[in-house]
């Protein structure tokens, strides 16, 4: 087992462990911080999986900006009130959800189980550079040469989000 495998194991374990921590922690602030740790583990995994650009993206956008918004939201709400005695639904619903989640996991694993290595031949020719080589340029090509239309659609989505946020925030001006 080389260094890469050790790191993969550590971060994969970390991602799963912090995910479980988010789900089980009562306090919202702690949950948010554990979620940040989860995201950082994922960023490390991306780097180890030859996607350095996505690792940076994950830190910049997810851990950096999205989680800041989450923490703002936590700070704007009364955290003493939330997450005390009623952090979870009743035991019946928890058991049901556990069953559902296990079923979902089993279904997905069962569905994907048959397909590993032998059947799913890599699309790239053998010996071709992996996704890590020249990663930024290759991602940029996929983004702007074939994905130009989606890119513009994302622009419209962001504009919609700005208008939507203004509606939610400015409502109080009228009252």
């Amino acid at each position: 087992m080389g260094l890469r495998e050790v790191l993969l194991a550590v971060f994969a374990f970390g991602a799963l462990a912090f995910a479980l921590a988010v789900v089980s922690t009562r306090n919202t602030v702690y949950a948010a911080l554990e979620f940040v740790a989860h995201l950082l583990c994922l960023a490390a995994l991306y780097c180890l999986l030859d996607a350095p650009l996505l690792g940076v993206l994950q830190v910049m956008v997810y851990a950096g900006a999205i989680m800041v918004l989450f923490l703002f939201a936590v700070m704007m709400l009364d955290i003493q009130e939330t997450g005390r005695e009623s952090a979870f639904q009743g035991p019946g619903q928890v058991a049901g959800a556990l069953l559902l989640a296990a079923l979902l996991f089993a279904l997905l694993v069962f569905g994907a189980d048959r397909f590993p290595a032998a059947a799913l031949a890599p699309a790239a020719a053998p010996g071709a550079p992996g996704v890590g080589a020249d990663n930024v340029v290759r991602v940029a090509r996929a983004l702007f040469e074939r994905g130009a239309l989606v890119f513009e659609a994302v622009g419209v989505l962001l504009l919609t989000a700005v208008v939507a946020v203004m509606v939610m925030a400015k409502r109080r001006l009228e009252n």
Partner: protein
Amino acid sequence: MFGVGFFLALAFALFAVGAFGVLTRRDPLVMFMCIEMMFNSGNLALVALSRYLGLASGHALVFFVVAVAAAEVAVGLGIIIAIFRTEKDVNVDHLSELKG
């Protein structure tokens, strides 16, 4: 050991954990974090499959998904905050006026 199957299984596990969280938690902020966790499991699957297939186009998909998730977070937290500012309580179970 760390083939594409491992990462797919990890992604599915994270997806299931997130789904469990959405169904059991009451705090909308934590529920929303769990939803983001499910989004991220899709991204992880995309990255692992891209590496396996040797196609960087999967990375471009992750770019778009992250941008979409950012927009969704902005609006979603806006909704949660707007409710809080009038209700002073964001426990989904107290939102019972509409039940039935």
